[in-house]
């Protein structure tokens, strides 16, 4: 090595930075800074956990769907969320973390999931409100992630986004159907929107001023927009949708600002948000207990499948050696 040659690590880092600067994707076997890898593992894993836990609030209503049509739709939607979790676990594993370790970190509570799933689903209108607002907010977050700098994450997001559109539309259609029904049904829809509007705004995270990690994530091309940018986009999108639906969004400060070309709106209760994140959300214990039980109850199935596979393999080897 000559004196002018960069040290190997510096050369690798320069190559990584150049790839990011070119807007090219980083792929699993590429060299990457440890901070980049850790940020991705944390982000993708907790995104996956959110999809998996996210099955519970709506899964709650599958057995009580009002019609076979609604039941089939809800089953398909919840199954998609399982799929989203699996695409994302698969992406996280390319960073050198094992699936069982990821599951263990969720079940032990060491890694978290989005606190939106700690709110209860009290009526069937909630299935509609979740599809429209919660999946709608997820779309705002996830569409820019399709261009994230880590290849496997971006590809998983492209698959997810294709399916999210169905989630949002089925929710909105459910609500429009109820709005065409009785006064009681309209009241159910409004009540549900009143409960889910603020938690949906919280999904974008704290205001930018309180989100110091955003800058590094954006420099690495992992994140493409700030929390406030995405929240604003979501509010601007939702207002005309609420009007068409005939519901009121529960924010007295919500008003069009001609000068900014955007809506002004109030702040969610960040204290409630922090409590949810800390594990004190209304359904937090229930969600975790359910996930743990599902894992433990499934143990014998995993063992039986492993034993069966071993037996089949042995039989095959016997055949070929005979």
């Amino acid at each position: 090595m000559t004196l002018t040659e960069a040290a190997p690590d510096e050369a690798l880092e320069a190559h990584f930075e150049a790839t990011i600067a070119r807007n090219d994707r980083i792929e699993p076997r590429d060299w990457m800074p440890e901070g980049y890898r850790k940020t991705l593992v944390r982000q993708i894993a907790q995104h996956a956990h959110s999809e998996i836990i996210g099955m519970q609030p709506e899964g709650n209503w599958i057995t009580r769907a009002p019609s076979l049509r609604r039941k089939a739709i809800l089953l398909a939607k919840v199954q998609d969320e399982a799929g989203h979790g699996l695409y994302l676990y698969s992406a996280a594993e390319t960073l050198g973390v094992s699936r069982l370790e990821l599951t263990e970190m969720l079940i032990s509570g060491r890694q978290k999931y989005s606190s939106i799933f700690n709110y209860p689903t009290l009526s069937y209108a909630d299935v509609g409100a979740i599809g429209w607002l919660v999946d709608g907010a997820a779309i705002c977050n996830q569409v820019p992630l399709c261009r994230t700098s880590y290849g496997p994450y971006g590809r998983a997001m492209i698959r997810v986004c294709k399916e999210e559109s169905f989630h949002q539309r089925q929710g909105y259609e459910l609500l429009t159907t109820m709005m065409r029904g009785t006064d009681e049904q309209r009241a159910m829809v409004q009540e549900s929107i009143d409960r889910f509007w603020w938690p949906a705004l919280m999904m974008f995270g704290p205001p930018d001023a309180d989100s110091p990690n955003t800058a590094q994530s954006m420099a690495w091309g992992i994140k493409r927009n700030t929390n406030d940018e995405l929240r604003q986009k979501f509010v601007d999108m939702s207002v005309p949708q609420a009007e068409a639906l005939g519901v009121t969004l529960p924010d007295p400060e919500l008003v069009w600002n001609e000068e900014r070309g955007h809506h002004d709106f109030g702040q969610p209760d960040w204290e409630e948000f922090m409590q949810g994140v800390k594990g004190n959300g209304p359904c937090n214990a229930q969600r975790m207990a359910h996930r743990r039980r599902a894992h433990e109850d499934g143990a014998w199935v995993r063992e039986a499948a492993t034993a069966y596979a071993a037996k089949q393999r042995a039989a095959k080897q016997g055949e070929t050696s005979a």
Partner: protein
Amino acid sequence: MSNLSAEGGHGAVPLEGVPTGQGVPAPEPEWPLYEVFVRGKRGLNHVHVGSLHAADDRMALLHARDVYTRRNEGVSIWVVRADAITASSPDEKDPMFAPSGDKVYRHPTFYDIPDNVPHM
């Protein structure tokens, strides 16, 4: 409130104090990892779509159908154990692909053809 971000796509999650895995061996033996390839429709190549864990080949195929083809995304699936794949290493990228890099004459654009020659 300083440790949170909308990272996580489906809603804000904490950033600090969250472990990112030790790469430690799993407590129970993990099912092998399979890579999944799907042929979108007749006439196209199989394309890599992701991976999954399964106890055996047959289960891998069934899981691949459920995870990666819920909306007619494919007419044919291949599953291959990840440990059976031999891949080029990114470290040897330059020497590995160098033999094709300097052979510009393999490309049609290398050749000047007069403008008045049709259909070429």
